[in-house]
């Protein structure tokens, strides 16, 4: 067993700030805690914040509301903790049904729809290109063309 220890193990936990009470009326107060003194303003919405409400992230000071909004709208990359890989889904929907060939008449259009619908969706943090989307569209299109030829041939044979 190997254990690598760092100074943080022996550091006491950082105490959170409660925020100073407002003693003088003409001082600015926190937007969320009117009885507390404002120490900074939110970099996103400009609201005054006490030490308790001030959240420091990426050298910015934000209020809890802007932090929540930034997380939901994916503006704060550091808070993003989940992504769906639509490019992988599109490619799998285009390729895997080839094992049970007959369902490709249904899955090929679905693969193209997924690729177009989620073209602008954020990809994996480590993966940069949209090559899987392109491959999904190409393979699905080939399948559709193949089905078109098969149906045309069948119609010709019947007539």
């Amino acid at each position, binding site marked *: *067993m190997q254990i690598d*220890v*760092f100074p943080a*193990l022996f550091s006491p*936990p950082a105490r959170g700030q409660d925020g100073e009470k407002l003693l003088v009326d003409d001082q600015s107060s926190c937007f969320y805690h009117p009885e507390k003194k404002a120490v900074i303003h939110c970099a996103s919405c400009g609201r005054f914040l006490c030490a308790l409400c001030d959240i420091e992230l990426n050298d910015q000071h934000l209020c809890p509301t802007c932090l929540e909004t930034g997380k939901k709208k994916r503006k704060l990359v550091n808070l993003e903790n989940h992504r769906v890989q639509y490019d992988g889904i599109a490619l799998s929907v285009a390729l895997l049904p080839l094992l049970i060939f007959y369902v490709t008449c249904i899955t090929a259009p679905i693969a193209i729809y997924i690729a177009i619908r989620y073209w602008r969706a954020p990809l994996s943090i480590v993966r940069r290109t949209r090559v899987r989307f392109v491959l999904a569209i190409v393979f699905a299109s080939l399948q559709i063309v193949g089905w078109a030829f098969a149906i045309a041939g069948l119609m010709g044979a019947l007539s």
Partner: protein
Amino acid sequence: MAKDHLLYIAAHGYSEDYKRFYYRDIQAIITRETGVREVWTSVFVVLAACTALIFAPLALKSRDGQALWIVGGILCGILMLLSSINLLLGPTCATHLRTAVQVEQLGSLNRLRKARKAIGMLKPLIEQAQGGRLTADDIMTRATAMADVAARAPSYASTVTRKPAQRVHYAGTAHLTLFALLLVRTVMRWSDFFFVHIAKALASYPLFIGLFASIVIALVKQRNSDVPKAVQGLVWGSLAHLCVMFYVMNSYFQFLLALQLGPQAQFDVWERLKAVSAISPWTNQFVLVTDVISGTVNVLLAIFGLFLVRDFRRSSAIMAGAVPPPAREG
């Protein structure tokens, strides 16, 4: 590795979860060797040996022995190649990262060589963020000081308590169904020694699907439940056994039917079904061996499973007060 944090990506099929560990917060990295490499090596070697034991006698007795030697050789070769790759990748390990609020396992650092290389890259970044490295004397001094503080103020250490993992009570119905179906399957397989019929072959398909579905349901239900570990292990064992037998029997029947039926009749589902249902263990050694082995394993799994689930249900009922505990003698 970013400038100020380590990004940990957990991939789950088509989605990813991200966790960021800031260098200033990392307290320790623990690397512990595990025996996973040895387990997988044993699995591959045993599978290769079983494949050789199945194919060698068949190839020796069969007229078209060459094809069987080739197929058996390829399968054994693939398994031994996987075993070699596993050995070459080096010893396996479990790597944990500790901060003030969590101990997180870094699943991707599961090989000792890779883990040591990654830790070698991380250490300078962490030490730079935390303002220096610790010597052995530093660690001893600070650890002693921490122990003194903890001894004088025990309430500090006890304020952070972990809640025990919530376990849901589950009565084990899916497990009972699974083990009962295993017994039914064994009876069906062993009845081949007395008679073969196409109806039995037809019935075996829904039985197989039902067995597989009950395994999946049992696996889902037993997750985070109070079902004993032994029963959970038997379910996983049943899944592994089912997969191995499906792979082995399917491969063998595909090969046999390709030889027995003509190229056109091979794609006729009814002809294939009739041919498979006519195979008796008394006329086919491979089917004889697999029926005996598979049936024995199924019976053992089913009997152990049924007894364990019965005991579990009894003890659960006693704990719930529904059934009085058995009277003790003396």
